[in-house]
């Protein structure tokens, strides 16, 4: 079977303006998952609400919760219906939402090397043309921004990062590619992503990273976590080859530092 929705995400409209008070909706997804939805748009502020609730739930260690999945504007809570119920869980979550705490997640800032040259960037010319920018300007804009990791999904370790500089916002490709190499760095709508595994995909490829984003053999298999910050460092093909070789030897660490909560 083809991957349902072979193209990650379908981020809706982005808004960075001041929004009214966040209205929280509880939605059941069957009897083993509850969605706490903070809105229907992609906004940093909503993402932070999502991450704050995930952290509160982790600390509260509520009975019956199996795991939580932060997404762009909602938190999915997977639970064991034999140990709790939708009604109990909803009451407990409402209490947590009432107790506004600081976001105390330990976030990290990662500096991910990306080669924006030649075969690594098959869509760079197209993106330049569509945006009316020179290719170097596209690269400078993409690499000149600090991104927020909204969520990991679609594939193991695939980060949805935003927000893109407004001048780089484009719809997804009309014809998705059947196969993209791992490490492909792509943009569409207000987001940028990195494909961790070979995958089909409909985003515009403007670069590639030699870094490994997912390794099932590690206890923490994904490099990035929701809430992390990412900056891209433009590297040339020679550096790409060097870093890739080091990654394969197990001799490379992506530069990163802790961010104060």
């Amino acid at each position, binding site marked *: *079977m083809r991957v*349902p*929705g072979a193209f990650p995400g379908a*981020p809706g409209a982005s808004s960075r303006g001041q929004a009214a008070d966040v209205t929280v909706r509880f939605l059941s*997804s*069957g009897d083993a998952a509850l969605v706490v939805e903070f809105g229907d748009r992609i906004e940093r502020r909503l993402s932070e609400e999502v991450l704050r609730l995930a952290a509160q739930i982790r600390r509260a260690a509520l009975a019956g919760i199996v795991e939580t999945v932060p997404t762009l504007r909602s938190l*999915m809570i997977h639970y064991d219906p034999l140990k709790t119920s939708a009604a109990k869980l909803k009451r407990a979550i409402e209490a947590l939402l009432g107790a506004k705490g600081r976001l105390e997640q330990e976030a990290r800032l990662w500096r991910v090397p990306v080669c924006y040259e030649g075969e690594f960037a098959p869509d760079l010319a197209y993106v330049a043309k569509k945006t009316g920018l020179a290719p170097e300007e596209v690269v400078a804009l993409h690499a000149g921004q600090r991104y927020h990791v909204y969520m*990991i*999904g679609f594939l193991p370790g695939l980060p949805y990062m935003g927000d893109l500089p407004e001048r780089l916002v484009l719809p997804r490709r009309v014809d998705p590619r059947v196969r993209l190499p791992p490490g492909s760095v792509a943009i569409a709508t207000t987001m940028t992503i990195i494909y961790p595994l070979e995958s089909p995909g409909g985003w515009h490829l403007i670069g590639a990273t030699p870094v490994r984003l997912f390794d*099932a053999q590690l206890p923490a298999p994904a490099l990035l976590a929701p809430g992390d910050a990412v900056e891209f460092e433009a590297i040339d093909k020679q550096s790409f080859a060097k870093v890739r070789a080091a990654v394969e030897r197990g001799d490379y660490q992506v530069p990163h530092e802790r961010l104060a909560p």
Partner: protein
Amino acid sequence: MSAALKVVAPGLHTTVQDLGRYGYQAVGVPVSGALDSLSFRLANRLAGNDDNTAALEILYQGPTLEVAADSLRVALAGGDAELERLGEGGRSVGGWRSLRLTRGESFRVRGPSETACCYLAVEGGFALPPCLGSASTYARGGFGGFGGRALQSADLLPLARESVVERAELALPQPLAAARDQTIRVILGPQADHFTDAALALLLDSVFRVSKDADRMGLRLDGPQLVHRDGYNIASDGIATGAIQVPGSGQAILLLADHQTTGGYPKIATVISADLPVAGRRRPGDQVRFAAIEVEEAEALRRAQEAALAALSASFVPAAAAGLDHARLYDLNLISGVVSGHE
């Protein structure tokens, strides 16, 4: 020599599974695990194992295996699949039972033909290191289970035990009904409000059919087009197993164990946890009907199902030497309370 189960012929898609890999969905790792957790747990219980012991999930066509251990106890559960001893005096001993075999013996899993899947548990389980806390195979990601893939000929599956003691072999007093025409119960949402009233009515009033596009990730359903109210893109959100996702084509996809953790299409409804095993065993061509219930009812059904499973496990009988007369039992149409819930 270390004990192993040797793969003579792998079957169509035979993988090592347990009850799932939890705790990594936030980093995009699907839960995986048995499609039909009820049959999976019964296989383990018949083999004398804990419920979550790694076992083989067999899709559509069973493997042929050879015992490379002093002795081994297997148990087969699922649909109409049967264990067939090969070699001299070889014959079918039926399914839904355990069986002790000794070194050099070969056996085949015949079927399943009524259901998509069946389960072969071995007493003590396989000696496979867990990956991210689970033995489940996630073939698309290439990890878990045996080498992160479906079994191939000549694979040697390491066994946790070199030998097993003789005891009375156990069987279910009657096979669990495949329930191929049971209505699958859903809770509407999480994005039912993204669909027209007509689409919601069609979901609950139509007969869908499982298409050929059916695998561990999900079942694409043939049936009426379910029309979205206002476009088919949503900001990606979480996906629960059993979610019925409707992409732009309007064709519903019922998502199963290996489904992606997040997605950007609206989910019109979600199959209740008690009915996931029934959904997981549906085959291409099978009919699917949906009925909507409330979450409290789904929770009660799930508790009833656990109680029925416990009662069923307490009712294991010694497996008759000649095997069970399955044809007669199917004729009696003894539908187990485990899957029928309180309907």
